[in-house]
């Protein structure tokens, strides 16, 4: 199990989508750009008009770590943390699901992992070649 996500007014849509098993990003309506982490305003055109875009869930591992001391709080054992670059160009911190250690450059696909309070967060599993 893992801790619930921290949720803020401008980011709730992301975590609510995760709870439904949907992987999304903020999309600026006028200029169609995607942004992560979410923010109240599009930094390119400054529009406040946003929608939610569904993402492919395909990504590549850029970096990985595992907290040893202290172990990760709220987990039975420290997970492998990965930084991924999504197919759509956004970057995100997440977790690696798998028996072996990740390699930088591994192709991964999104899944969802439950949290202690009944919510969910996106995690990634290696795509077998």
């Amino acid at each position, binding site marked *: 199990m*893992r*801790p*619930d*996500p*921290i*949720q*803020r007014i401008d*980011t709730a849509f992301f975590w609510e989508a995760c709870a439904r098993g949907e992987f999304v990003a903020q999309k600026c309506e006028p200029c169609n750009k995607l942004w*992560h*982490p979410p923010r109240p305003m599009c*930094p390119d055109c400054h529009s406040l008009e946003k929608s939610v875009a569904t993402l492919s869930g395909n990504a590549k591992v*850029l*970096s*990985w*770590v*595992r*907290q*040893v*001391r*202290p172990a*990760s*709080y*709220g*987990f039975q054992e*420290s*997970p492998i*943390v990965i*930084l991924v670059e999504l197919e759509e160009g956004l*970057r*995100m*911190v*997440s*977790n690696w699901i798998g028996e072996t250690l990740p390699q*930088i450059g591994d192709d991964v696909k999104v899944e969802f992992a439950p*949290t202690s309070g009944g919510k969910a*967060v996106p*995690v990634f599993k290696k795509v077998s070649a």
Partner: protein
Amino acid sequence: MPAAHEQACIVGIGQTEFSKASGRSEQQLAAEAVLKACQDAGIDPKSIDGMLTFDLDNSDEVDIMRSLGCEAIKYTARLPQGGASSVSTIVHGKHAVEAGFCDVMVIWRAMNERSQYRFGQPHHSMSPDAHSSTFMEWCFPFGAQTPAAWEALSCGPYMHKFGVTSEDLGRIAVTFRKAAATNPAAWFYGKPITLDDHQSSRWIVEPTLRLLDCCQESDGGVAILITRADRAKDLKQVAVRILGAEYSMLFNHEIISDFYAGDLIRTENSESVADKLAVTAGLAPKETDVAMIYDNFTPQILRQLEGFKYCGIGEAKDYVADGHLELDGTTPLSPNGGLMGEGYIHGMNNITEGVRQIRGTAANQIKNAQTAFLASGVAGAIIGR
């Protein structure tokens, strides 16, 4: 550029002992450090009229006034972004004093981050809406909950690309501890380490950071006094001029959790600071005599050596291995032993060491040090006589 008589100078420095259990409040540590800085300068604490600290500092301005008896404050500010604030205080201190916002600016940072709380451990009570911590939302539920984890994750692509090994990082730790071993103020005074010690130290974050790649958690307080040159000349110490001080935070970057912008290889904020300093201070960081570079974790030294243009991109590990950072090398690094060897007062004890080097009063004095570079990632300053 200000006229010479209006230029901001560091005229006083103060610090408590650096320990693991101070036995007194953070507010008292702050007050003691400020008083020592005033005594060092020969300035009456009552005449302090400007105050700067970190947004993370727990001591309130009103309480510092109450202890020191400051009669009237004309300027206060608190700076964001954790340890990056350390040299940012010099940027703000310089400009506030030169602009006439105040005449006697005190900067302090005091913390019981070992005995009262643990700065390096998960902060699960932190509000994501305040104090430079919005990034926590995107790290915490994935188990990336400590500064060491954020640092290691952001340095991964750089280390992978250039084949940086744990031994490469270990050489940096050995350098800091060698300097600390001959600095009586350092927590690790008399305790140098070998590369083997580094290699056998336990993992903090796999596959990157061992215990000896990390700065300390320390209790202590540090204070710095800044005033203009025309007033500085009548004070007790040789005035240390702030020749240039610059800050640069580029779009979509973060401080330690710097995952979202750039190529994760270059340290663009630091590059921008170095470029600006070359103009405003009239010399580049690598042209100074001493480098005081923020060392929260060993990879940061590699990234900043490249960002501040001491060497080319990807060359830092060889720059270290070639001995340039030794006290008799071309870039003597943190002769106090840095935040790893001396103590971790959020970077501020590296600034006081830079001042001592220019005064010629440091424990590990670099011969003929005329200028020093102070750096904390997004901020850099060059000080000199």
